[in-house]
């Protein structure tokens, strides 16, 4: 795994059951915070048709894409069956309240 950790903000910067984006030169990464305060990061692109996952509704450890309602697992980036597809995942590290993100996809 990478050691290029970038500090992107604190847990409280992201609404619970919500997401925000980290804007990079090659596109957005969505950083999610679940109901249980777990943090996950995925490329902000739905495997279906590129919808911005950061705009979806977060439930459990999943996000429902705002465009056609595919559910994507935040843990694996995989679309929940019966849909098929995958969004790239990025490593996250939490230190205290701070969130660190690595830009090397898993």
């Amino acid at each position, binding site marked *: 795994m990478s050691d290029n950790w*970038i500090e*992107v*903000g604190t847990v409280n*910067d*992201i*609404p*619970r*059951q*919500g997401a*925000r*984006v*980290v*804007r*990079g*030169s090659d596109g*957005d990464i969505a*950083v999610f915070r*679940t*109901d249980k305060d777990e943090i996950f990061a995925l490329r902000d692109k739905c495997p279906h*048709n*590129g*919808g*911005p996952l950061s*705009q*979806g*509704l*977060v*439930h*459990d450890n999943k996000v*429902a894409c*705002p*465009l*056609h*309602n595919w559910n994507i697992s935040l843990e694996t980036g995989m679309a929940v069956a*019966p849909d098929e597809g995958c969004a790239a995942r990025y490593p996250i590290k939490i230190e205290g309240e701070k969130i660190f993100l690595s*830009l090397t996809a898993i």
Partner: protein
Amino acid sequence: MKEKLVVIGNGMAGIRTIEELLKVAPDAYDITVFGAEPHCNYNRIMLSPVLAGEKTIEDIILNDDQWYADNHITLHKGKAIKEIDRIKHKVVAEDGSEESYDRLLIATGSNPFIIPVPGHDLEGVVSFRDIHDVEQMLDAASKHKHAVVIGGGLLGLEAANGLMEQGMSVTVVHLMDSLMERQLDHAAAEMLKSSLEERGLNFLMQAQTEAIIGKERVEKVRFKDGTEIYADLVVMAVGIRPNIELAKAAGIHCERGIVVNDTMQTFDPRVYSVGECVQHRGLTYGLVAPLFEMAKVCANHLAKYGIGRYEGSVTSTKLKVTGIDLFSAGDFTGNEYTDELVFQDASRGVYRKLVVQDNRIKGVVMYGNTLDGSWYFDLMRDETDISEMRENILFGQAHLGDSGHGGEESRVAAMPDDAEICGCNGVCKGDIVKAINEKKLFTLDDVRAHTKASSSCGSCTGLVEALLAHTVGGDHSVAPHLKPVCGCTDLSHDDLRKAILDKELKSIPATMQALNWKKDDGCPKCRMALNYYLLCAWPTEYKDASQSRFINERAHANIQKDGTYSVIPRMWGGGTSPQELRKIADVAEKYKVKTVHVTGGQRIGLYGLKKEELPKVWKELEEAGFVSGHAYGKAMRTVKTCVGKEWCRFGTQDSTHLGVELEKLTWASWTPHKFKLAVSGCPRNCAEATIKDFGVVCVDSGYELHIGGNGGVKVRATDYLCNVSTEEEVKEYCAAFMQLYREEAHYLDRTAPWLERVGLSYIKERILEDEDGRKALAERFLIAQKVAQVDPWKERVEGVAEHEFVPLKEISG
């Protein structure tokens, strides 16, 4: 150590229960299944098409060996259980092997009833229940000529038809004077009989079998009156008996079936039972829809969620004989309190009868064209008030000007495979049929999950259901008493709304906890509904859960397919001014808006804005006095008007002014679905008021009020509510009607389907006849509006929810 669950019976109900259990608690048990048949679980219903040569055995397997292996289920095929030892908690199989259990599920189905006439055990006498029976019948059909089917019910007729398709000459023998007397009235039964006769079946009615004659193999059948007919094959299809011997021998309380309570437990709380072998609230069932409902409840309790009750089912019947359309449901004989509505056209072979009590459908019988069957069945289940459509109801849904759901059934059968069924998700008929066949789908939800058809706007639901019925052939229609909100709860929308008020639940987590939600965090469906129900119930107290809103309502703009947003400012009553237009033009230029477009609701939309730009755009618009147009929400959208008396030579009242007043009254109000209004200055109706949720048509003497219309996929014209004489009254009635809709409709119901469900007379009762009630409704609306009428754009310009519009971090390079 995991607990052990043993299932007796590898059939439709038992395995459906396991499937449901694996969905909710995949790791709860070590599961072992014993099945007397040497096969994997298959779709018993489809034995009829197999017999008729339309399907093969492979086609109808539901769960293959791999499925059992994948789910770590031990399957003992061809091993019947002969004893249950409830003291030692174990079962004993015929070969002496044993298996202990912590919980036991009995799903032994039923046995065909064999009339004990002499000769009933001769070779060539079979029942119609399993693959083995079908194999025997197919074998006989390949070698012999004459078949006799005893029993003119559903099963008997399907057997007879299948054997005829296999080339046999078939006689159906029936004890009664009317076929399928438990499902059909006499008129429909006669039509069925004559069309089966036309196809080549022979019938002997009111014939009582006395003996089956033959040496080793059957040769003849003799009747009470002494007549005899040739037979090389006799199929007994005279009924089924719940298979309860095993349970009975183990001392479990049985009557006609194994007696279970609403949680599918027998008198021994470790022992559950589902399927045709059970007796629930005095009833036994012989169709799959109720069994699937039982399975769901049973799985829920096995998973120890402890919620959900089985409360009995309403069932409907279809005959799976290709080319014959027949549908029946409910109580079709009626009594002294019921009316019969009958339509009969013998030369076209069409017959339909509705049994009606107090304007609710109690029973349906249809023959010939049954495309409206599921519609009637829905009306019956939902206990919809039919007084408004009574005159035309027999002609079917297509003749009513339906309201954006159901209908259209008549199209599916004839549609080509590439016809698009779901416009939202671009799903064609061929895709859906393929998914139903290949993935063995039974329910609308299954089809939604696998194909996405009808999972978005939902207006194609009726078509998908029709397609399901058409493809599965049998009775697919699972009929819960009332549909639950979603998979996270068993409560219906109405129950949920009531519980929120009764138990004074004031937040989403509190509601989920108090009502035993199955998932801590719910799903998008229930969270959005809950947020609405709570804000409607507690307008002054509830704190909006923005994370439980769809993005559009969270961002106060419409997300477009490329992830950009549109902005549509409010223009009161459709009016604008040079200053406003100039501002819009400036903003459009400054932000390089790709498209400027006039909407159907008389507004101007700016399309293609980036999310970060929204607060800046709003700020500029606000300088010209604009507020949010709520074009993105389940909310009051627009009031459309014509110029009315001020300019138009026909105008009778100041429709524009009234429109502005109505918009000031109703803007920013959240509703179960979008809500649109219009005011036309005279009956020429240029503002199209009669296809709005609330429409006003001005007349010389005052104002005509109309409700429950919509444009869209399926246009529905409004129903006329009443006339009033002043603008103040229009406003009061409008507020009261909107509040009634807000308080009582289900989330995502537009006014049209809601109105059709509760009936126009109910609305009239609440709004016209009950003056105090109307005033109270209007007042509650005003209280809610006091809190709601804050411009969300202005708030956001001032910094509310800032996180929504700026990235968490920008990384350069």
